[in-house]
C-alpha cells in the first residue's frame, strides 16, 4: 500500500487505491484533481457569462440559462473549486508541517472528500436533468423556494452533502493540530499556514451549521410543504438571508485565511527571513476569525434592518481592516531587508499584495452602510469580491500549488512556463475586474442578463470580457505546464526552495508514513534552525520503532454514494412518491455502511522497525 508499490500497479489497482485511500497526501491529490476540475467548469461558466456581456442587448445565451450560469458559477467556484483546492493544500501541508504521520481521523478525512465530491457531482448533474439552480449562489427566498423545476433542489441537496464533508474536514484538522504536533512544536512555533488552518477550521465548525440549518429549512419548504420562507403562510424570508450570511461571511474568511498563512510561509521562505511580527500575525488571524462572525449583516444593508443595525454592522466590518492591515504591513516588512527570490510561487505572492489590498479597500468602501445603498448588488460588489477572491484566493492557490507541487509529486513545475502563465492571468485579472468598479457606479446592477444600449456601459463590459479571455489563456498555459512537468519535469530534491518548515525535511514525495522518526522541534522555522545551527537535519524525538498505520477502506466512498443516491430520491419524490424508495434505499446504504464501520474493528497495521530500516516505502 505504499507509494512506491503504487507506482508499479496497473490502472485498476491504482484507481482502487485512490478510492480507498486514507493517506492525507493522496487525499490531497484527490482534492486537487476534483477541485481543479470544478475550477475549470466554473471558469468556463465565467467565460460564458462574459461572452454574454460582451455587447449590449446580446442574445448569446437565454435569460433563464444566464441565471443558471452565474448561479452555478458562483456556487461551483466557492464550494467546489476554491474550498476543495484549499483543502488540498491543508491536507498536503498541515500534517507535514507539525511533524505528524497523518491527520487525527484518516477515515473521516476520506469521508470528507467523498462527501464533497458526490455533493458536487449531484449539484452539477442538474445541468443534464432539466436545468441548474437559477436563484443566485445566495438563493434568496422566495425566489428560490418558488423557482420552478428541480434546479434549486439540486442546489439544496448538493450543498447539504458537500457541506457535511467540509464540516467533518474542519473538525479533523482541529483535532490534528491540537493533538498530533511533534514534540517541541508548541502553538507559538507552528508555521503560519498551520495557524490559519486552525482558525479556518474553527470558522468552519461554527459557520457551517448555520448553512446546514438554512438548507434544511429550504429543503423542507421546497420538498415537503413547509412554510418557513413563505410570507403568505406566516413565513419570513429574511430568516434565510440571516442564516445564509451567518454562514456566508465567515465562509469568505474560510477561503482567504489559509491563503494568508500560505503567503506568510512563502514570503518568509523566498525572502530568507523569518516572518516579521510572528505573534502579531497570529493574533491578527485569530482576530479576523473572531470579527468575521459579527459582520454578516453587511450583506443586508438594503434589506431594511434599520439604521441602528446597519451602523453597528458597518463599524464591526470596518474593524476587520485593522488586523488585515497588520498582515499586509508585516508581509512587506518581512521582505524588507531580505533577499528576495522571484520564483513563480513568490511572483503570485507579490502580485497578491496590491491586488488584495485593492479588493480590501473596495470592501471597506462597501462597509460604509449608507454608501452601500448605491453599491449593493451592482458590479462594484462583483469587482470587490473578485479582487479579494481571485486576486487573493486564486493567486494564492496558484502560489500554493506551485510551492508544494514538488512535495506532492516529486517534480518541480516548470518555472518558465509558470511565468508565462502568470502574466496573462495577472493582466487579464486587472483588466476584467478593475473596470467593473466603475460599471457598478455607472449604474450596472449585477446578475443582469442584458444591459441596455446607450447606457454608457458598452466599453467597460467589452474590456472586462477581453480580460477574462486573458485569464483563460493563463489558465491554459498553467495546465500545459502541469502536463509538461509530469512528462519532462525535473525531479525535485527534498528541499527545493531552501525551506524553513518541517515538510522540507523529508523526501519529495514523502514516504506514506511521512516521518520515519518524529522530529524534535527546537523553535519557530525548525528546519531553518537546524540548517543554521545544527547539521541541517531534524533531530529525531524518538528511537526508530514500529509505526502504526490505518487501513485503507472503501466505506467512506459507499457512505457518500448512499447519500448521493438518496439525494436523487428526495429531489424527485415531489413528482412521484415512488422516488421515496430511492431516497430510503440511499439512506440505508449510508446507514448500513456506518453500521459496518462501527461493528467491524479497524485496528490498522504496523510497519515494522526492520522494514523501516530497510527503507520500505521510501523511494
Amino acid at each position, binding site marked *: 500500500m505504499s507509494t512506491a508499490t503504487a507506482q508499479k500497479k496497473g490502472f485498476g489497482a491504482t484507481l482502487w487505491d485512490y478510492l480507498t485511500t486514507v493517506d492525507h497526501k493522496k487525499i490531497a491529490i484527490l482534492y486537487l484533481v476534483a477541485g481543479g476540475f470544478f475550477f475549470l467548469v466554473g471558469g468556463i461558466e465565467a467565460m460564458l457569462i462574459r461572452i454574454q456581456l460582451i455587447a449590449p442587448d446580446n442574445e448569446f445565451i437565454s435569460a433563464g440559462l444566464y441565471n443558471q450560469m452565474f448561479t452555478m458559477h458562483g456556487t461551483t467556484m466557492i464550494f467546489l473549486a476554491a474550498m476543495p483546492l484549499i483543502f488540498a493544500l491543508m491536507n498536503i501541508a498541515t500534517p507535514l508541517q507539525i511533524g505528524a504521520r497523518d491527520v487525527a481521523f484518516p477515515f473521516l478525512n476520506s469521508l470528507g472528500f467523498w462527501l464533497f465530491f458526490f455533493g458536487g457531482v449531484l449539484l452539477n448533474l442538474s445541468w443534464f436533468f432539466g436545468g441548474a439552480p437559477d436563484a443566485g449562489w445566495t438563493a434568496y427566498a422566495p425566489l428560490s423556494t418558488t423557482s420552478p423545476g428541480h434546479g434549486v433542489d439540486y442546489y439544496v441537496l448538493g450543498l447539504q452533502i458537500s457541506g457535511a464533508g467540509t464540516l467533518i474536514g474542519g473538525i479533523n484538522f482541529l483535532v490534528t493540530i491540537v493533538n498530533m504536533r511533534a514534540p517541541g512544536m508548541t502553538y507559538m512555533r507552528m508555521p503560519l499556514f498551520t495557524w490559519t488552518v486552525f482558525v479556518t477550521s*474553527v470558522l468552519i465548525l*461554527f459557520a457551517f451549521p448555520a448553512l446546514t440549518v438554512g438548507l434544511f429549512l429550504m429543503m423542507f419548504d421546497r420538498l415537503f410543504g413547509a412554510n418557513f420562507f413563505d410570507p403568505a403562510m406566516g413565513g419570513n424570508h429574511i430568516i434565510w438571508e440571516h442564516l445564509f450570511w451567518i454562514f456566508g461571511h465567515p465562509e469568505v474568511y474560510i477561503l482567504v485565511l489559509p491563503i494568508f498563512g500560505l503567503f506568510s510561509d512563502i514570503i518568509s521562505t523566498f525572502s530568507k527571513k523569518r516572518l516579521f511580527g510572528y505573534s502579531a500575525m497570529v493574533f491578527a488571524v485569530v482576530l479576523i476569525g473572531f470579527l468575521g462572525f459579527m459582520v454578516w*449583516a453587511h450583506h443586508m444593508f438594503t434589506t431594511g*434592518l434599520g439604521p441602528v443595525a446597519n451602523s453597528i454592522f458597518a463599524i464591526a466590518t470596518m474593524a476587520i481592516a485593522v488586523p488585515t492591515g497588520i498582515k499586509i504591513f508585516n508581509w512587506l516588512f518581512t521582505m524588507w531587508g531580505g533577499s528576495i527570490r522571484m520564483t513563480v510561487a513568490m511572483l503570485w505572492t507579490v502580485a497578491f499584495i496590491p491586488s488584495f489590498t485593492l479588493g480590501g479597500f473596495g470592501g471597506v468602501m462597501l462597509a460604509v452602510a449608507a454608501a452601500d445603498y448605491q453599491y449593493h448588488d451592482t458590479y462594484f460588489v462583483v469587482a470587490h469580491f473578485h479582487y479579494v477572491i481571485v486576486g487573493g484566493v486564486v493567486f494564492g492557490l496558484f502560489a500554493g500549488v506551485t510551492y508544494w507541487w514538488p512535495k506532492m509529486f516529486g517534480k518541480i513545475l516548470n518555472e518558465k512556463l509558470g511565468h508565462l502563465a502568470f502574466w496573462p492571468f495577472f493582466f487579464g485579472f486587472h483588466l476584467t475586474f478593475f473596470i467593473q468598479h466603475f460599471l457598478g457606479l455607472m449604474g450596472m446592477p449585477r446578475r443582469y442578463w442584458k444591459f441596455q444600449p446607450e447606457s454608457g456601459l458598452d466599453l467597460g463590459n467589452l474590456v472586462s470580457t477581453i480580460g477574462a479571455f486573458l485569464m483563460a489563456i493563463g489558465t491554459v498555459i498553467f495546465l500545459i505546464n502541469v502536463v509538461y512537468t509530469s512528462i519532462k519535469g525535473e525531479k525535485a530534491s527534498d528541499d527545493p526552495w531552501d525551506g524553513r518548515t518541517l515538510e522540507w525535511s523529508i523526501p519529495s514525495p514523502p514516504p506514506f508514513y511521512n516521518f520515519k522518526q518524529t522530529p524534535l522541534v527546537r523553535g519557530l522555522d525548525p528546519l531553518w534552525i537546524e540548517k543554521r545551527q545544527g547539521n541541517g537535519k531534524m533531530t529525531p524525538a524518538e528511537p526508530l520503532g514500529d509505526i502504526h498505520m490505518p487501513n485503507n477502506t472503501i466505506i467512506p466512498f459507499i457512505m457518500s454514494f448512499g447519500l448521493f443516491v438518496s439525494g436523487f430520491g428526495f429531489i424527485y419524490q415531489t413528482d412521484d412518491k415512488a422516488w421515496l424508495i430511492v431516497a430510503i434505499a440511499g439512506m440505508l446504504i449510508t446507514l448500513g455502511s456506518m453500521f459496518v464501520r462501527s461493528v467491524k474493528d479497524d485496528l490498522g497495521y504496523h510497519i515494522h522497525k526492520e522494514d523501516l530500516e530497510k527503507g520500505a516505502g521510501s523511494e
Partner: protein
Amino acid sequence: MEKYTNSTAREFHKKKNKEEMKYQLITFALMIIFTLISFGLVIGDYNAMLTVPVIILLACVQVGFQLYYFMHMSHKGHGLPALFLYSGVFVALLTIIAMVTIVWW
C-alpha cells in the same frame, strides 16, 4: 500520565469516583428542583415579565450542571472543550439575538 495503576491506587480511584458520584446525585436533585420551579412558575401563572427571565436563568444553570458535572467539564483536560463550547455559545447567542431582534415581522 501514569498508565497502569496498581490495585491500591485503583482502590483510591474507586473511592474518588464514588465521591464524585455523590456530587452527581446532588446535581441531579438540584436539576429536578429547578425544573419543578420552572414548571411551577408557569403553572402558577405569575407575571410573564418575571417568569421568563427566571426560567431562562434556571435553564442556563441547569445546563451548566449538565456540562460541568455530568459531562465532566469541571475535570482537568477540558480546557479546549470549554473554549470551543463557549465559542459555539457565543455564535449561538449572536444568531438568536439576530433572529429575535432584527427579523421583526
